C-alpha cells in the first residue's frame, strides 16, 4: 500500500532539509515556534528577523515563498479577528485616516497576525520536508508515549483508505442526482457518514483479527535505524538557537525600556 505515507503538504524533492532526520526537524520547528511566541510583541524587528530565518530555511529546503504564501491562507479566520481588534479594543486610542483605533487593539492584532503567520510558516516547512511515516518515527524517537504514536500510525494508515472511500461515496451520491445546497438537505451526507462508520469498523475488525492471527500482542515492532549524528543536530538546532538569541535581545530590550 503506497498510500498513507505521503500527505498533501509534502513536497517530494531532495534538499538538505529533506535529508535531515525527522526528530531534529521536529525539535527545531517546535523550539523555534515556542521561542517566537514568547517574544514581546513590541519588539517589531525581532519578527522580521524570524521571518528572514524561516525564509533561509525555505531556501535551503527549495520551497518557494509563493508556495508558503498560498498555503498560509489557512489562518485567514484569525486575520479577520485581528482586523476587528483595533475597532473593538479598549484603552487609549489613536486617530488614523479618520478612524479611531485602540492602541491596545492594534498591538493585539499585530501579535496575532505576526505570531500566527510565523507559526504556520514553521509548521508548513516541517510538513513540506517530512513524510508522514517519518514524522511518526521522529515522535517515537523523541520518546513520545508508544500508545500515541501507535494510534497515529493506525490513523494515518486508515485515513487514506477511509478518505478515498468517502470520496467514492460522495461521487456515487452526486452522480445519482443528489445536489444538496441547504443544511436540511444534508440527510444523504449523514446517512453516508453512518455507512462509512460501519464499513470502517468492519474493516477494522477484519484487519485486527488478521493482525492477531499473525502474532500481534498490542505492540508494533520498532523500526529503529541509526539515529541522527552530531552534524544533523547542530545543523537543525541552528534555527532555534538563532531564535533564542533574538528572543534574549528582544526580552532584554523590553525590560531595559520599561
Amino acid at each position: 500500500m503506497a498510500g498513507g505515507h505521503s500527505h498533501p503538504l509534502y513536497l517530494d524533492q531532495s534538499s538538505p532539509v529533506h535529508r535531515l532526520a525527522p526528530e531534529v526537524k521536529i525539535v527545531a520547528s517546535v523550539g523555534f515556534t515556542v521561542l517566537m511566541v514568547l517574544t514581546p510583541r513590541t519588539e517589531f524587528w525581532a519578527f522580521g528577523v524570524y521571518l528572514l530565518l524561516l525564509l533561509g530555511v525555505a531556501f535551503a529546503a527549495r520551497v518557494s515563498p509563493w508556495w508558503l504564501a498560498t498555503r498560509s491562507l489557512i489562518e485567514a479566520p484569525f486575520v479577520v479577528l485581528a482586523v476587528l481588534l483595533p475597532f473593538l479594543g479598549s484603552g487609549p486610542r489613536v486617530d488614523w485616516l479618520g478612524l479611531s483605533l485602540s492602541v491596545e487593539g492594534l498591538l493585539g492584532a499585530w501579535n496575532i497576525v505576526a505570531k500566527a503567520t510565523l507559526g504556520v510558516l514553521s509548521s508548513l516547512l516541517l510538513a513540506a520536508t517530512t513524510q508522514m511515516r517519518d514524522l511518526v518515527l521522529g515522535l517515537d524517537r523523541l520518546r513520545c508515549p508508544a500508545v500515541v504514536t501507535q494510534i497515529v500510525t493506525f490513523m494515518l494508515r486508515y485515513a487514506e483508505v477511509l478518505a478515498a472511500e468517502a470520496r467514492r461515496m460522495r461521487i456515487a451520491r452526486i452522480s445519482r442526482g443528489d445536489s444538496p445546497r441547504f443544511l436540511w438537505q444534508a440527510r444523504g451526507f449523514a446517512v453516508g457518514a453512518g455507512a462509512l462508520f460501519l464499513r470502517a469498523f468492519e474493516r477494522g475488525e477484519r484487519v485486527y483479527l488478521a493482525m492477531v492471527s499473525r502474532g500481534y500482542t498490542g505492540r508494533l515492532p520498532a523500526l529503529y535505524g541509526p539515529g541522527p549524528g552530531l552534524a544533523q543536530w547542530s545543523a537543525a538546532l541552528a534555527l532555534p538557537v538563532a531564535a533564542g538569541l533574538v528572543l534574549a535581545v528582544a526580552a532584554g530590550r523590553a525590560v531595559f525600556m520599561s
Partner: protein
Amino acid sequence: MDPVALHIANGLVNAPVWLAYLGIAVVALVVCVKRAGRDLDERLAPMAGLVAAYIFAVQMLNFPVFPGVSGHLLGAALAALLVGPWAGALCVSIVLIVQAFVFADGGVTALGLNIGNMALVGTVAAYGVIALLLRVLPRTIAGLSVTAFVAGLLSVVAAAFGFVLQYALGGVAPMPLGWVAGAVGGTHLLIGIGEGLITAITVVAVARVRPDLVHALRQAGWRTPEKAPVAVGAGSAS
C-alpha cells in the same frame, strides 16, 4: 480539503494560559489512555486509530449550510456516542495533534487550547447530555435521535465557550467579553445545529444496522432498537 481552519493559532492567548492548558491536556490524555485501555485492552491502538481516521475522514467531507457556506463535522459528540467518552476524547486529541503537525492547522503552542476545547470540553458536554438523556428519554430511535442532536449541538457550543473562557483568561488584547461571547457563541450555535442534525442521522444509521457498535447504547443497557434493521440508504451491503 477546506483551506480555512478554525483551530486556534499561535499568539492568540498569552503564555501562562497556553502552558496551563498544555499541562491539563497532557494529564487528561494520560487518564484517557488508561480508561480507554480498560475498555479496549490490546485492541486500543488499532481501534482508536480507526476511529481517529474516521473522524479525520468525516471532517474532510463538507456539508452545505447555505449556498456558498459549508461546514464540517467536529465529531466530538459522534465519537463519544460511538466509542465512549475516553476513547472519543483520545481520538479527537490525536486528530488535532496530527492536524497541527501535518496540516499546519492550529498552532503548535495552541495544541493544549485546542485539545482543551474540542476534545475535553466538547466530550464532557456531549457525554453529560448522553448519560442524562438516554436515561430519561424513551428507548426508541426517536429518543436516540434527540439525544444525539442535543449532544452534538451542546458539544460545539460548549467548545466555543471554552475558547471564550481562554480569551477571558489570557487574550492578547482587551475586547468586550460580551462581544466575543456573542460572536463566537452565535456562529457556533448555527454550526452546532448542523453538527447535531448530522450526529443524530449518523448515529441512527449505525444503530439501525449494528446497535452493538454504539457504545452509548451498550452503556445504557439497550438490547434491540424498536425497528427491525433496515438497509442503510448509502449501502451497507459491501
